C-alpha cells in the first residue's frame, strides 16, 4: 500500500491528483461531443491558439484564463471568417490559423519579459500548480459542466441532426458558439494539467474510447468521464514513481485504455466475437 499512500503525504501530489482528476472529468465529458461532432482538429486548433493569450495575460497581470479564452474564441472566429471569405477548405484553414497563433505565442514568450516558463505552457505543470491557478480551474470546470449539463440534449441533437434542430426553432448558431467557447475554456483548464500540445488528447481520446464501448449516449458520457478520471489518477501516480513527464503519463494511460477498448470492446473491438453481427 505504500506505493498508493506515500505520494499522498506530499501536498503537491494531492493537489496534482485532484486537479488532474477534475480536469480529466471535464475534458472527458466534452470529448463525447468533440468525437461525435467531428471536432478533433478544432480542439487541436483551439488548444494551440490559446498560447499567445496566456502570455499576453501574464504580461498584463490578468488571469491567464481570460487571455487564453479571448485568443481561443478569436482563433475560431478567424477560422470561420477565412473559410467563409475564401475558397480554401476548412481543414487547411484550421491548420493555417492555429499554427499562426501558436507561432505568435512562441515569439511572445521569447520577447515579453515575464516569469512564464515555456515548457510549463507546452507540457503542463500540474505538480507545481499554484492556488490561484486551482481557483481558475475550479471556476472554469464548474461553468463548463453546468453549460454541458443544461444543454446536453440540445447539444446532442446539434451533433446528430442540426437541420432538425434548426427546423424546430433551436438556435443552432448559438449552440455552435457555445460549444466553441466551452472548448476554449476547457482547453485552458487542460493546459494546466497536460499543456498545450497534449490537451487535444484529453479532448478526444476518452470520447473515442467510450464510443467503442456503447451505443447509448448517456452511457458514453459516463464511460468517457470514468476513463478520463482514471487515466489522470493512474498517470499522476505512474509519473511520480517513474519520475517522468506527468502529461505524457496521463495521455499514455488514456491511449492504453483506448487500445484496450479497440482490441477488446464487446461489440466494436477488433477481437470481438460479436463483431460480424455488428451493423
Amino acid at each position, binding site marked *: 500500500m505504500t506505493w498508493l499512500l506515500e505520494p499522498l503525504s506530499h501536498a503537491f501530489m494531492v493537489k496534482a491528483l485532484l486537479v488532474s482528476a477534475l480536469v480529466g472529468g471535464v475534458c472527458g465529458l466534452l470529448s463525447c461531443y468533440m468525437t*461525435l461532432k467531428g471536432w478533433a482538429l478544432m480542439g487541436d486548433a483551439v488548444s494551440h491558439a490559446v498560447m499567445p493569450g496566456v502570455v499576453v495575460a501574464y504580461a498584463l497581470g490578468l488571469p491567464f484564463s481570460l487571455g487564453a479564452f479571448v485568443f481561443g474564441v478569436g482563433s475560431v472566429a478567424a477560422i470561420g471568417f477565412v473559410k467563409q471569405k475564401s475558397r480554401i477548405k476548412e481543414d487547411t484553414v484550421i491548420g493555417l490559423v492555429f499554427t499562426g497563433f501558436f507561432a505568435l505565442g512562441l515569439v511572445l514568450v521569447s520577447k515579453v519579459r515575464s516569469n512564464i516558463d515555456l515548457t510549463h505552457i507546452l507540457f503542463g505543470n500540474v505538480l507545481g500548480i499554484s492556488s490561484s491557478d486551482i481557483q481558475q480551474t475550479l471556476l472554469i470546470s464548474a461553468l463548463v459542466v453546468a453549460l454541458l449539463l*443544461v444543454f446536453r*440534449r*440540445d447539444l*446532442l*441533437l446539434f*451533433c*446528430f*441532426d442540426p*437541420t*432538425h*434542430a*434548426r*427546423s*424546430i*426553432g*433551436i438556435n443552432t448558431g448559438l449552440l455552435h458558439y457555445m460549444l466553441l467557447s466551452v472548448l476554449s475554456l476547457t482547453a485552458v483548464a487542460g493546459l494546466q494539467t497536460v499543456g498545450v500540445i497534449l490537451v487535444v488528447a484529453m479532448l478526444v481520446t476518452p470520447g473515442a474510447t467510450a*464510443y467503442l464501448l*456503447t*451505443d*447509448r*449516449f448517456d*452511457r*458514453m458520457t459516463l464511460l468517457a468521464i470514468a476513463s478520463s478520471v482514471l487515466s489522470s489518477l493512474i498517470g499522476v501516480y505512474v509519473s511520480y514513481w517513474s519520475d517522468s513527464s506527468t502529461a505524457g503519463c496521463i495521455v499514455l494511460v488514456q491511449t492504453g485504455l483506448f487500445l484496450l477498448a479497440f482490441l477488446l470492446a464487446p461489440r466494436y473491438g477488433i477481437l470481438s466475437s460479436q463483431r460480424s453481427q455488428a*451493423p
Partner: protein
Amino acid sequence: MSGRLIPPAGPRIEVEQLCVDYNGTVALYDADLSLPPGCICGLVGMNGAGKTTLFKALTGFVRPSHGRIRINGQTVLAAQRDQAVAYVPQSEGIDCNFPISVWDVVMMGRYGSMSVLRWPRQSDRVAVRDALERVDLLPLAQRPIGALSGGQRKRAFLARAIAQRASVLLLDEPFNGVDVRTEQLMAKLFLQFCQEGRTILISTHDLGHIREFCDLVVLINRTVLAYGETSAVFTPENLARTFGGMVPKP
C-alpha cells in the same frame, strides 16, 4: 395523435417571389408557390435545380435575398416556434454510428415543445410511443439507430415528424433505398397525413413515384416552372424544360 389539425385560414405554405443566392450565385429566383392544407405535393427538378435550397428556405437555414415565405400565415421563425415544420432527412445524410436509440431519435421531435432542459413528460412519451406505433417500429424502439435497415431508418425519421405534430412535412428523397414494406407503409401514412390536414412536400427525381403518390406537383429549375395537378403539369413540354430537354424515363 391521429386527430385532424385545425386548418389555417389561408394556404399551408405560401411562397412569393422567393429569391435565394449564395454569395452572389443565384440558386432560386422569383419562385411562387401556394400549397393548401392536406395535400401531397411532389417537388421535381434536376440536381442543383433548387430543391434543397427551397427546403432550406422553408426550414430557415438560408435567408431569402428577396420575397417572402408564409407557413400557416406566419413567418418561418414563428412557424418553427409552433413546431409546424418537420424536415425528414435523407438517411444517407445522418451518421448511422451515432450512439442513440430509435426511441431517443423520435423523442427529438418533442424537444421543441419541452422546457429548456428537455425532460420528457408523460405526454411526450405517449406521443413518441404513438408515433413509433404508426410507423410500425415500436418493437425496435430500443435499438441503436445504426442497427436499422435503410427503410426502417426512414420510418424512424417519419415517426419523429409525427411526434412533433408538424403540419408541414418536408421529405428529402423519401424513396431512396427503401424496401417494399416501407414504401407501402409510407403510401398509407401519406394518405393519412393528407386526411389529417398535413401538407407534405416530397423532393424527388423519381417521376414514377410522383405519379403514384402526389396529387400536386411543382416543377423546378432555378425557379418554379409549373405547378398544379399532377396530370395537368406532367406534360412533355414542361418536363423538357425541367430537365433541360433530357426527360428521364418514368
